[in-house]
């Protein structure tokens, strides 16, 4: 596992394809939220790349904020339940909120975040995800209003998506080689 493009078996979405789709999503959000400028909430760390590009392409006033939660399998997760490790800096009560995700997979993380945010009584709460992998969805009832691409059940990295904290920086989204998944380092 080199942590570089050498470990990529196939490019699924090029830098150009991602940029074009992000502009389309930004256009949709700009249209839908023109009367009510939204607060975009991103989940650290994976969605940061997407949020950065998306927010710069949106043509209406917006605000951004960040959250971070423990992930299953991570060291801080030993308590056995997901924990919020970085909360929002702003109040969302009465605000129109868009949760920006890099990928919705099982929907478990998004479901947790939605429960958390909904309890704070926003005026509206929708999801914008760059990638959607419905095949492994467990929580079906997520309010996904904007989705960039539907993706197959392969291990994807790049544009914020990582494997053991590597590959996030790649400007495209690719399928990680099996050899990289098996590598011990």
């Amino acid at each position, binding site marked *: 596992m080199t942590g570089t493009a050498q470990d990529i078996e196939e490019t699924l979405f090029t830098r150009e394809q991602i940029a074009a789709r992000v502009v389309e999503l930004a256009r949709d959000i700009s249209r839908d939220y023109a009367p009510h400028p939204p607060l975009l909430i991103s989940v650290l760390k994976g969605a940061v790349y997407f949020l950065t590009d998306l927010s710069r392409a949106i043509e209406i006033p917006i605000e951004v904020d960040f959250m971070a939660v423990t992930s299953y*399998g991570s060291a801080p997760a030993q308590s056995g*339940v997901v924990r919020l490790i970085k909360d929002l800096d702003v109040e969302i009560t009465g605000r129109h909120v868009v949760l920006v995700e890099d990928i919705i*997979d099982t929907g*478990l993380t998004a479901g*947790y975040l939605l429960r958390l945010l909904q309890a704070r009584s926003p005026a509206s709460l929708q999801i914008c995800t760059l990638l959607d992998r419905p095949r*492994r969805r467990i929580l*079906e009832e997520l309010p996904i209003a904007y989705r960039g691409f539907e993706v197959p*059940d392969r291990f994807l990295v790049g544009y914020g998506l990582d494997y*053991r904290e590597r590959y996030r920086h790649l400007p495209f989204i690719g399928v990680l080689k099996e050899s990289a998944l098996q590598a011990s380092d």
Partner: protein
Amino acid sequence: MLSLGRATASLTRGDAPSHLRFRDEARGIPSRFLIISASAAILGADGGFSAARREELAVSVKSSKSSAADGVRFAHASEAEFAKILDFYGIRWRYEPQSFPLAWDARGRVIESFNPDFYLPDHDLYIELTTLKQSLVTKKNRKIRRLRELYPHVHLKIFYNKDYRQLLLKYGLRSTAAAG
């Protein structure tokens, strides 16, 4: 008798039948009898269970086989890991709470059934983890097709070996993924 079996099965969806089936199977009583008595527990009026007894059953169901992966004996390590993932994200689950009859003999006795691994009550969703070899998956797929024919209202999600392995890898659980 076939229709009786199917009708009985549809009546057993819910907490009380699941609990009865598990508890009584542990006592060695054939499940086909228990499914019927469980249905009676739901119906109440002609089932011989008093309101107090039904309440007792409902209470004991809540404390059995429901979430907290540590307290359940799983058939496979992959199921235990999956339960922990659900617990981690606060998703309530039950382990193998329901048996769906798929085939009956001429006397109406269940000769084939399917027990999904998990039920998520808040999402009305059954989940089956299939970490078997491909040769065994074919047989399970046939049962799943039959389940969907007989119980079209049942929401079932299947995680095949590859799906589940990718999920574990996503969480950085390489050793568990390799074992699965």
